[in-house]
């Protein structure tokens, strides 16, 4: 029994040290122009989702959004987000330069609720290319962006046109 405890403790010590050494000595591949394994993607994506759910639980419900808010959020998207997350109304094009790759929202849509989207845009997602936009957008802008993102793959062609037309003006 004593030996069992020894073995147990040894595993708790050796594994973390091994993992830290593996990274610190530079054995962990670092280049971003590769694809994460399915395991890594599944693991980290679910961790981010769970963390966002937990953190955004305290965010108040969104103000009811009308079409104007969605269009306003769409304009912000066109200006600030589509470089990484995909052109609104454009063809699907996977980003292979960032690791993990940014989701192509106009095609993939999102599973997050509006308060969660608000939270993500405001605070960012660490250890990804998603930085925090809280310092750059007002509360109203963040909420309009969340309203837009929530509907991004279900927009009518008329709405898409409206969003893009305003940009060209």
């Amino acid at each position: 029994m004593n030996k069992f405890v020894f073995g147990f403790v040894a595993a708790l010590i050796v594994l973390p040290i091994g993992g830290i050494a593996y990274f610190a000595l530079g054995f962990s591949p670092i280049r971003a122009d590769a694809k994460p394994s399915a395991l890594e993607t599944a693991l980290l994506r679910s961790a981010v989702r769970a963390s966002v759910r937990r953190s955004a639980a305290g965010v108040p419900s969104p103000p009811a959004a009308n079409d104007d808010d969605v269009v306003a959020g769409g304009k912000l998207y066109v200006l600030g987000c589509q470089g990484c997350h995909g052109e609104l109304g454009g063809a699907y094009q996977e980003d292979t330069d960032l690791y993990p790759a940014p989701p192509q929202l106009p095609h993939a849509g999102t599973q997050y609720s509006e308060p969660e989207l608000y939270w993500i845009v405001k605070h960012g997602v660490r250890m990804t290319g998603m930085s925090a936009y809280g310092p750059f957008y007002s509360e109203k802008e963040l909420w309009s962006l969340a309203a837009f993102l929530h509907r991004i793959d279900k927009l009518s062609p008329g709405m898409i046109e409206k969003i893009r037309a305003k940009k060209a003006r």
Partner: protein
Amino acid sequence: MKNFIAGFLAGILVLIIGVLGYLRLGLLDARSDAAIPDWTARFLYSGIHASVRRTAPKLQNPLPQSDETLIAGGKLYLNDCVGCHGEPGKPPSDFGATFYPPAPQFPRVGTKYSEAEVFWVAKHGIRRTGMAAQGSSYSDPKLWSLAAFISSFPNLPPHVLEGIQQKSMK
């Protein structure tokens, strides 16, 4: 011995379940706008550097060491890197600070990386950071000029800086 191995395996199992549980319960903070603890930053940066040192081929910059090279790299830097990494002679980038880990401010701190390593990082990016691979956007010679330019921080010759700014105003 059998008991030791059984205990060891049990330890591995508990660790894996613990980590998975921690992640699945959402206990890992996902925010990128939280301050990164000093030891975490040092650990991440040194592990990344170690990996780049191990991976990047040890090459000489094929471009001549000249002002033209630095100015070409500087123009590229001003176009595409300043947003996150900061502009020479200006305050640090607010935008670069909103990443986790934050983007290093080269004009102030320079870099510990060799030119070949800077070239490799610019070309291939750094996973799990905001540093995207630029190899699909820029040719190798352009990235070498960029590497020469970034390596010259923080002691950029003033006339090079002037050269870049003049050319970029054109």
